[in-house]
């Protein structure tokens, strides 16, 4: 019995270690999300701090990033599903030009604000040297998670749900 429990514990610990290996620790977690102001694709001013009081899912993506194309429609669905509970999805495109971004936004029917990123904004968020990267920011503007690379969207939705119902 004892041996079986030990085996189970080992299994759980190793599984967590393996599954978590795709997500590097970030110095931004548990710290205030770096503020920024940008114009969205429609020319409207988007200021991160104006979403204080909402849970923000901040996603860095690009049109040439295949996993991003899978995530974005899901984020759009979550935006609709959890808007009443206070979720706000914001997307930062790391494309070099906005034309392909506009096309993708139209093709995927994205309604949430999309802004163009740059090296300065990327560096403020700890460097964006691989996509996608998503930050979950709580209602107080604190980064609670940094999810790097292709991720399990069911798990991510659970985290979003947990945050909006807190």
């Amino acid at each position: 019995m004892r041996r079986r429990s030990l085996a189970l514990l080992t299994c759980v610990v190793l599984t967590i270690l393996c599954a978590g290996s795709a997500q590097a620790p970030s110095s931004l977690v548990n710290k205030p999300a770096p503020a920024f102001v940008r114009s969205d694709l429609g020319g409207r001013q988007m200021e991160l701090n104006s979403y204080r009081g909402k849970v923000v899912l901040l996603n860095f993506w690009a049109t040439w990033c295949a996993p991003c194309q899978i995530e974005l429609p899901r984020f759009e669905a979550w935006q609709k599903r959890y808007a009443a509970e206070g979720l706000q999805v914001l997307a930062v495109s790391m494309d070099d030009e906005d034309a392909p971004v506009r096309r993708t936004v139209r093709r995927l029917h994205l309604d949430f604000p999309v802004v163009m990123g740059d090296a300065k904004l990327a560096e403020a968020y700890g460097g964006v040297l691989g996509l996608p990267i998503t930050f979950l920011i709580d209602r107080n503007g604190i980064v609670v998670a940094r999810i790097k690379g292709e991720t399990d969207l069911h798990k991510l939705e659970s985290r979003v749900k947990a945050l909006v119902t807190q």
Partner: protein
Amino acid sequence: MNSLAKCIVFVLFVGLTTGTQAQFSSPASAPLSASTVPQAQLMQPAELVKLLKAAGTAQAVVFQVGSFVMFQQAHIPNAGFTGPTSQQNGLILLKKFAAPLKKDQLIVIYCGCCPWGRCPNIGPAYKQLRDLGFTNVKALYLANNFGDDWVSKGYPVERGE
């Protein structure tokens, strides 16, 4: 098989499937996958570091074939920037930059925008160089991305344009 052994097998399975998820599920519309580059033409990051230390860039011509925003944040010293070669403009610039080079010149291309099997830029860049007759083209194998597999390892980088 005792339960500990079963658990280890399970954990290895979870770890492997998590790690390889990105490499086996490219959408049909995706550009030529990086997986099309022959294994023998891949260069490991440590190998390129050694080469750069030994010979600077005299022996290898390095091109970053991905995003400019990423290039600005960090890139391999002296690497040329072509722009994303999944797009026509990137391929045009790559052709232009490669034109003066000898056909047997060692050319190393890298991107690191996305996990290897998801990178849309390496496959088209490699194919273009081969089609142009370059015989010594290597693709830098960045399993996850440039941040994880190069910058985080402390390998040399330059910032800016």
